[in-house]
């Protein structure tokens, strides 16, 4: 049970694709100027990651290791084409907004990396879970960046005005430079939190060791 939970959970924070692994950064900057776009991109990537992990895992024993990368690429390209067609048919506005970045999901490093590192070695259930967890972690990061950018850049959240009227939107947050600055600061914050956690863990371990030592001496 713990292993199942961990397979899913590690993608959320511990190995967050954007902040920790620093993979697939292009969409994190390009389509996060509004929350809705960020959410749509997150859904699309989660779907592709999960489906691709399942496909790769099913065929993991039949694919010759020498040709594995072309096989993975073909599988990813097929799934992405399906996603594109579905979005174009049912959500044309979102399809327009995501534009070229939806086609670029094909070459996201995170999808190929999960297929290579995880799905080619594990069974279907764990692979699907791993892809889903990673996708959700990606979506959380996208939503975080998207909401900050939209809030400060145009004073709205998912299209609803939330800032007081006197607030003057900082246009730079919507523009490309703001995206770079914001992600830089967010990575710094993630690292800072990670440092505190490490320190706390170390202190806790040290305390336990001291207690054990004291117990031994007492006996």
């Amino acid at each position, binding site marked *: 049970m713990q292993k199942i939970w961990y397979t899913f959970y590690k993608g959320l924070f511990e190995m967050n694709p954007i902040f920790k692994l620093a993979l697939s950064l292009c969409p994190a900057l390009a389509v996060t100027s509004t929350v809705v776009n960020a959410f749509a991109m997150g859904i699309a990537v989660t779907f592709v990651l999960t489906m691709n992990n399942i496909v790769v895992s099913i065929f993991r024993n039949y694919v010759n290791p020498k040709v594995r990368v072309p096989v993975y690429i073909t599988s990813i390209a097929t799934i*992405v*084409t399906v996603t594109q067609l579905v979005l174009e048919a049912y959500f044309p506005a979102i399809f327009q907004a995501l534009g070229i970045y939806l086609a670029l999901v094909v070459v996201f490093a995170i999808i*190929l990396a999960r297929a290579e590192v995880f799905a080619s070695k594990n069974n279907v259930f764990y692979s699907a879970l791993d892809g889903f967890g990673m996708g959700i972690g990606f979506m959380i990061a996208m939503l975080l960046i998207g909401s900050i950018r939209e809030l400060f850049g145009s004073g709205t959240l998912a299209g609803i005005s939330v800032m007081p009227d006197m607030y003057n939107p900082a246009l730079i947050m919507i523009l490309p*430079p703001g995206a*770079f600055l914001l992600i830089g600061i967010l990575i710094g914050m993630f690292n800072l939190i990670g440092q505190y956690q490490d320190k706390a863990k170390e202190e806790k371990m040290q305390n336990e060791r001291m207690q054990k030592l004291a117990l031994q001496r007492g006996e």
Partner: protein
Amino acid sequence: MEYFTLFMSAVIVNNFVLTRFLGLCIFFGVSKNLDASLGMGVAVTSIMTLSSALAWAVHHYVLHPQGLEFLTTAVFVVLIACFVQLLEMIIRKYSPTLYNMWGIYLLLIATNCIVFGVPVINAESGFNFTQSIVNSFGSGVGFALALVLMASLREKLRYADVPKPLEGLGIAFILAGMLALSFFGFSGMIPT
């Protein structure tokens, strides 16, 4: 003149890295040292120009007449990956010196958003052959320019006192933000 405008717009105004966010993995991975980024810039520019010529031919003579445009994504990505692999084999066989200089970059390029993105943009904008070539070459030069600028900045940064949590990727992003801000001054230079 039209081609010159297209070229300048691809190099500076619509710079691939700083305004379209393509090729960021390479941009942050390679820009740690100046020599590597120069080599990478040249490699990306040449591969991109060649592969977009190939992709244009496939799109114009095969996909478009047959009405198979919905397959563009899948066909392009396989085409480019195969082309780069083939180029790597040819270079290794006939010019080992060139391979030593370049070889390591070629594998990194094979499936990368910048090399894949340009042919897709060309196909979507409906460019003709010359326009596609000019646009891809300009985009490559723009990428190389941004990469070399970034590498020079990061080399200077080595002796700076950076706050501990921002070390590495964090400060690199903030630096790229500053760079993007200065490139932003060029927008509006070319009427659209």
